[in-house]
């Protein structure tokens, strides 16, 4: 009996405290709503202001960097961009989250998808509800979204790496080598093939000589050893291009350990936190990868352009995305409708401390 009395007492207290808590802010909110609607009547057509940037999961520095760019875009456009994601990078949780956002009738969603296929029905439900659906970083299959923001394309990735190698080798050029992931890695092989073609055909790279392509299998120790054997084999080697995040860090460490800083330079694709040390010690003065802040910045601009009707989900539409300039919606048999971010971002000693991911 005692227990029951206490239970009832506690329930009553909860209800009371709740009533008090709920009344306070709610009244203010209602007033605010009334004022706002009055103002809106005076102004012209209602504009769309609420957008949500949905990362794969919260607490991931890569996506947090993206949110910085999204908020910059939000400030410029005068809109609200909420940063809301699931606790884990899981499709089931992300769908539950998206359903609660669809229920709120937001204007647009910029999503990094945890599962390209499982999110299709949810994406369709959002579009049916009149919500602009853009994906960035990781796409939903074309049927489940309007436009995907493509972070990089093959030719751009190949070109930026040769540009960096060309700068690092100096005006008179010299020997370069490639340290890749596994010999079967499809992405790396496509980039390497593109680089070989550009080396053979383009005037700007005529003074670069590709001596060998080796494979570190995305294994730190193996990549390190392969880099070392490159120094021994080719004493005049100027640049190692490593189009893989494991390979680039291992090569830079090998250069540092072998006291070859200033003689052999490492470049390629890497991430800021992993490469910071080597950018600062000069073993890898510059490397490239897309900038997640720019990616999300463009995603917000694209979502806004779609939601406001500035563009429709069709190929050939153009719009301006703030500081990044003008973009065109393209169609691709595999990717569907997409917008290409542009050349990968080059990280160097001047800007690396602006990034933490």
């Amino acid at each position: 009996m005692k227990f029951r009395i206490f239970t009832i007492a506690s329930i009553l207290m909860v209800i009371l405290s709740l009533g008090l808590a709920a009344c306070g802010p709610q009244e203010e909110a209602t007033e605010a709503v009334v004022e706002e609607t009055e103002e809106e009547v005076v102004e012209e057509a209602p504009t769309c202001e609420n957008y949500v940037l949905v990362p794969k999961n919260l607490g991931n520095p890569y996506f947090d960097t993206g949110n910085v760019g999204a908020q910059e875009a939000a400030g410029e456009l005068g809109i609200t961009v909420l940063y809301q994601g699931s606790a884990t990078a899981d499709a089931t949780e992300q769908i539950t989250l998206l359903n609660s956002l669809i229920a709120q009738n937001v204007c647009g969603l910029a999503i990094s998808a945890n599962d390209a296929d499982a999110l299709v029905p949810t994406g369709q439900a959002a579009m049916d509800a009149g919500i602009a659906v853009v994906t960035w970083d990781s796409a939903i299959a074309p049927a489940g979204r309007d436009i995907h923001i493509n972070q990089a394309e093959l030719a751009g990735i190949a070109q930026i790496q040769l540009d960096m190698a060309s700068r690092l080798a100096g005006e008179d050029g010299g020997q370069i080598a490639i340290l890749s992931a596994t010999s079967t890695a499809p992405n790396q092989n496509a980039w390497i093939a593109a680089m070989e073609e550009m080396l053979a055909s383009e005037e700007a790279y005529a003074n670069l000589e590709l001596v060998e392509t080796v494979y570190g299998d995305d294994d730190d120790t193996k990549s390190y050893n392969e880099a070392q054997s490159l120094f021994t084999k080719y004493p005049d080697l100027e640049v190692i291009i490593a189009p893989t995040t494991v390979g680039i860090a291992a090569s830079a460490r090998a250069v540092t350990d072998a006291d070859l800083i200033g003689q052999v330079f490492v470049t390629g694709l890497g991430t800021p936190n992993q490469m910071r040390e080597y950018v600062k010690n000069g073993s890898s003065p510059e490397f490239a990868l897309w900038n997640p802040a720019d990616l999300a910045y463009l995603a917000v601009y694209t979502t806004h352009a779609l939601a406001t009707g500035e563009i429709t989900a069709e190929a050939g539409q153009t719009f301006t995305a703030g500081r990044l300039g003008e973009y065109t919606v393209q169609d691709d048999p595999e990717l569907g409708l997409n917008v290409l971010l542009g050349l990968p971002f080059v990280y160097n000693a001047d800007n690396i401390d602006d990034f933490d991911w």
Partner: protein
Amino acid sequence: MKSQANPQNTSAATISERATRRSLTDVFKNWELLLVVLIIIVVLVNTRLSPYFLNAKNISRTSSDFMEIGLMMLPMVFIVVTGNIDLSVASNMGMSASFMGLLHNMGVNIWLAALAGLALGTLGGVLNGYLIAKVKLPSLVVTLGTYAFFRGIAYGFLGDQAARNYPAKFTYLGQGRVGGSLIPVSVAIFIGLAIIFGIILHATKFGRHLYAIGNNEEAAKYSGVPIDKIKFSLFVISGFMAAFAGLVLAARFGSTRPDNGTGLELAVITATVLGGVDIDGGKGSMYGAVLSLLLIGLLRFGMGLVNIQSQVQSTIIGLLLIVSIFLPHIGQRIAANKATRFRWKTVLAVVGIIALFVLFFVFFFWSRAPVLAEI
């Protein structure tokens, strides 16, 4: 022989009847009532906080997000009532759905593939049941093992591939609505099955046996309850339902990947325990479990609508779970010690509970990101 069997049966009946009566009076009056009150509070608060909460379309869409958990929760209630646990349900679900997906990718008819998925899931349940009931290994250890094992097999089936392009007739199971109404098909199926499972638990001999096993396995054994058979069948049912939940998930997603449903077993167990089913066995009702699923669903949906971060949502659900385990234990202690010397502890405990609830609502308001609903 006959003269021996009769007294055994009578004693079994008395034990299980007493068990049923105790569980109905004790648990029902305290915990289920509290759940109903909490549901009412959640509905009221959410309705005040967001204009999108009481919206049939929204509730319809979000309710199907919780049906896989619900389908796996039904047999889980049985298992926990006997004092066991099944940690492998979500992995079994992934395995069965992946098998179906694999067959679909190979061009097998979708319904045949679905049947094969159900069969494989049931087989997984048979493996659990055999190791627990026949080999007499603890269910926690066995299902912890098959938790990893089944998920591994799921990856074996599909690897980094996905199965997609299921026919509309199949995806109707997860995305469709009953007739012209707003009730999702999966919700209708869940309600039907919940009633059947509820009747089995509360109105059959099988159900009474479950409570008898949970209350005192040794006593039940000597009163003639076929413990091994019952335990075996429980895990087989659980395997079947996990596979069925896998089909519903695949239909809702319109695709399958081997990692589908990772971590859902914890949501299933949370819903079960929050429903007042004692993790030590012997107590609990289907009614409570279904109410707790409703509470979790409404709470999660409401918190999502005011954009409370996922981590905070999990914290709040976790807090509720602790309270749900905490309350019955205090009740037991008070019942055990009627002397007044324990009174100050009781007061402290109640103050603690109230503090937790207040904390809960402080969280509720403090963690609110800019509320879109108010703009």
